[in-house]
């Protein structure tokens, strides 16, 4: 019933995200959109590091690339990543939001417009408030909102900001996030 998963993370999220990506089945039925804060001047290396662990292919998409199931899309460094209504990626070099480019808010907000109630959104560990507003928009559009348990997060700011703004559907540990994703058909 869900059509896509969108995940946002910042400081302290790398290990969580690699654990999630290494636990997905090879034929995971949905696309996974990843917006992770990253160093602006380090253009390469990140997608490779995620790919080593991931069971599904991870790409930094080209502009207007069609989103396909069973594939991970990592927001490229120094770009915002939007989802167009026709389920294509659109990149942007507009000004940073919450001091971030890519901004999690923008990926979540546009993914929510495109996928409405067919979207699962997950906010992980992080040191700023980016993502909180996007998760609110996702929930408002009928999507399912999940936040990593702040007690498990290396840095709680992002998850706590999200919980303050939105009544989420689940507060999950990494293990619970994984078992939830494994049940998605």
């Amino acid at each position, binding site marked *: 019933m869900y059509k896509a998963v969108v995940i946002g993370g910042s400081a302290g999220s790398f290990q969580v995200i690699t654990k999630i990506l290494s636990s997905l089945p090879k034929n995971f039925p949905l696309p996974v959109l990843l917006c992770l804060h990253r160093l602006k001047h380090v253009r390469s290396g990140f997608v490779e590091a995620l790919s080593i662990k991931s069971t599904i292919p991870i790409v930094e998409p*080209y*502009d207007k690339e069609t989103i396909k199931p069973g594939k991970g899309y990592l927001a490229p460094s*120094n770009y915002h990543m*939007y989802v167009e209504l026709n389920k294509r990626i659109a990149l942007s*070099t507009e000004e940073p939001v919450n001091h971030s480019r890519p901004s999690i808010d923008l990926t979540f907000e546009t993914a929510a*417009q495109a996928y409405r109630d067919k979207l699962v959104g997950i906010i992980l560990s992080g040191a700023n408030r980016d993502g909180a507003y996007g998760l609110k928009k996702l929930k408002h559009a009928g999507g399912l909102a999940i936040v990593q348990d702040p007690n498990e997060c290396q840095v709680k700011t992002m998850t706590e900001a999200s919980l303050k703004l939105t009544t989420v559907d689940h507060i999950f540990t990494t293990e619970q996030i994984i078992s939830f994703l494994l049940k998605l058909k």
Partner: protein
Amino acid sequence: MNRYELGIVDTRNIIKTLQDVYNYDFKNYALTFFKRRVEKIITNHNLKDADGFIKKIETNKDFFEIFLQEMCVEDTEMFRDPSLWRVLKEELFPKIIHGAANFKIWFPEVSSGEELFSTAIILKKLNLLKNVQLITSSISELEIEKTKKGLFDPKKIEVNNPNFKRIFSEGELSDFYTHENDTAYWDTSLIENTKFIKQNIIFDDYPKGVKLVLFRNQMIYYNQILQERFIKIIYNSVVPGGHLIIGNHEKIDYWNSDKDYTLISKAESIYKKKLS
């Protein structure tokens, strides 16, 4: 925290108004981008909603110009992607421009001018600026005027200067600008021979005999239809063997495009127009 959000019907009405009143066709802009920009304008100008926006823009030409300026995305830094500028400085510019006269470089949408000034500074440092004719186009007259004055936001200096150091070991970026309090100006002698063209979205006229096109991260604001139209115009503008540089997450892949262009650097998205 709650921004005004534009519906799809409202967005279509706005696009129709711009077409009917000003003959500017925004329907092939990327929808999420267009929506977001208009939402920002509605919020910043206290226009309340789509109707407020339409009422104002229908009757107010000055406001239409402000709108066009808002549709040009401000470059946030000089020498974005320093690795590309190193390739231009160390390999491509010396190879293709050295000894040439009136070597035409075209920026099909110059937006806030950082690409233009980055190019001019590298050419100046290589002593090749005199060999080159820089040509820029923009949909925004206001943006062109700002670029001609060399005006830029001094907040960008903290990003610009380290980028410059990633390319040049000698000299300072401040050799090329003046900064006092809240204002900063590029040395406009860098662009004294630059030609500025005000254009509609699809060009009425475009330069011919161009040897290099720099068009990075502008087509990302268009849908595939408009992207392809731009690429075709650029193809007609560029001489055989000429170069086209686009953003590092953009690509040319329309049907049969490999008959028209060869990708010569995947890392920096540098294309070369085939000879025939």
